[in-house]
């Protein structure tokens, strides 16, 4: 299948839950979906065996925007489909994909400790990268992270 055909299939699969969709670059699709629809959309991709979950990126949009974006990158040959979930910065919650893709725990653990996003239903919420004595509530990849927060703690 050509990359265009793959992208079209992907677009159709997630169409019921898509709020906005864009093609930022060649071979890429970027779809915004609600956190509540995430599992349904991923299930659609997973059942159709459309690619594999390659990475989860957490993106802090800053204090003013008050939004954290969670990006789920699915790769299928040359095509990359990104599901973009926007959650409020104050109480960021996304559902775990563990029920569908078991290998997702590492990505989810990273997301939790680096950006303070709560992933509901993930089997292991231990720290993966940060040290044991890292202060709670300090998330290094948030834009308002300061080194002083570490020294204070």
């Amino acid at each position, binding site marked *: 299948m050509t990359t265009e055909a793959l992208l079209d299939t992907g677009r159709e699969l997630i169409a019921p839950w898509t709020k906005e969709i864009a093609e930022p670059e060649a071979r890429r699709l970027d779809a915004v979906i609600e956190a509540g629809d995430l599992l349904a959309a991923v299930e659609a991709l997973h059942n159709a065996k459309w690619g594999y979950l390659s990475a989860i*990126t957490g993106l802090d949009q800053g204090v003013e925007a008050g939004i954290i974006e969670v990006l789920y990158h699915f*790769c299928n040959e040359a095509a990359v489909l990104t599901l973009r979930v926007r959650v409020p910065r104050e109480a960021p919650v996304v559902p775990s994909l563990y029920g569908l893709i078991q*290998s997702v725990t590492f990505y989810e653990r990273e997301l939790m400790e680096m950006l303070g996003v709560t992933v509901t239903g993930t089997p292991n919420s231990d720290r993966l*990268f*940060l*040290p044991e004595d890292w202060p709670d509530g300090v998330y290094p990849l948030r834009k308002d992270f300061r080194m002083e927060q570490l020294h204070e703690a």
Partner: protein
Amino acid sequence: MDPNIMQPQSLEMKQDGDKFVIPIGPQHPALKEPGHFEFTVDGETVTGATVRLGYVHRGIEKGAESRSYVQNMYLVERICGICSHIHATAFCQGVEQLAEVEVPPRARAIRTIIAELERIHSHLLWLGVAAHEAGFDMLFMYTWRDRETVMNLLEGITGNRVNYSANLLGGVKCDLTPEIITAIRTGLDFLEERTQHYLEVVTTDAMFLRRTQGIGVMTREQAESLGVVGPTARASGVARDVRVDSPYAAYSEFPVTMVVDPAGDLLARCVVRVKELFECYRVIREMLEHLPEGDLTTRMPRRIKPAETISRVEAPRGELLYFIKSNGTDTPERVKVRTPTLPALASVAEASVGHQLADIPMIISGIDPCFSCNDRMFTINDTRGNDKTMSWEALRQYGIEFYK
């Protein structure tokens, strides 16, 4: 606490019945970076595994946000000392996509040649490590001796043995002179002959076969569902290779053939990597034969307009994914790196279940963990309160003795 026993701090001691949890603590005498595994065992058989990383977590993704694109080139090269060039390539390509800059063909070809030389050095390194873990130190010494050939070539091209810093935003720093091209050709001829020998050793040596054949099997279904990438996936019959699927740099002009093996065991992982070496030699020769003429660099803007991009490349260990977001300044807003080891680590848990404890060193090195993995001190926590400590070295020795 007894200082003899390296107690990992994050232990979820799951002890039920006669099962022990074996933490593989965070240091290794020879090769690897620290990481931490916990294996649950029932007698000699492994029943589960969990991973704790972060002993080498330096905070690079955050660090990248406070450095300019040019400075970041040096930072991302130092994410990994084995696959440094491919990290820089992935980052460069991402930034070039954001800036909509076209890299000259000669620069792309040189990038690719260095990337393939790096793959040769990485695979030879891995073969040595795997042989060492199997108790086959002779092969380890031979592969590392031959690896020096390719290290010399890399040094000849770029001036450094590791962290070559060959990439620039918008091109490459170093050219291939006729002398170095001749040297590469001679080096490749020698290596090809040696690799032929290694392929023979790996597939016929009875001792090595007993340590690899049918061990750590990962089926195609498992590999697909785990999202495993690179040679580990290809050894389970999953045809996944970014060089083929989504050609970057010069791979569209000089395509590579994917090496796939359906067996899924450690032997398949060895064979796939060794066979990939031949493919490396072939494609480098072809590129040297048809090396495009022209400039090495093109002009890059210092500030990059706001956008997001994804850059995927095939590192020696598999797909490496960079997500870069720019914000109109000369520093990136966000750099996300997903290294191939992360999904591969999950496969350790899957592949090790049901195997002998003695096979663990081989299974872990079978995925070629990069930021990574094994360690030295083992604490066997006995439910009856008799703690035993086993070093990685001792466990390795145990593995060797077990198969005598």
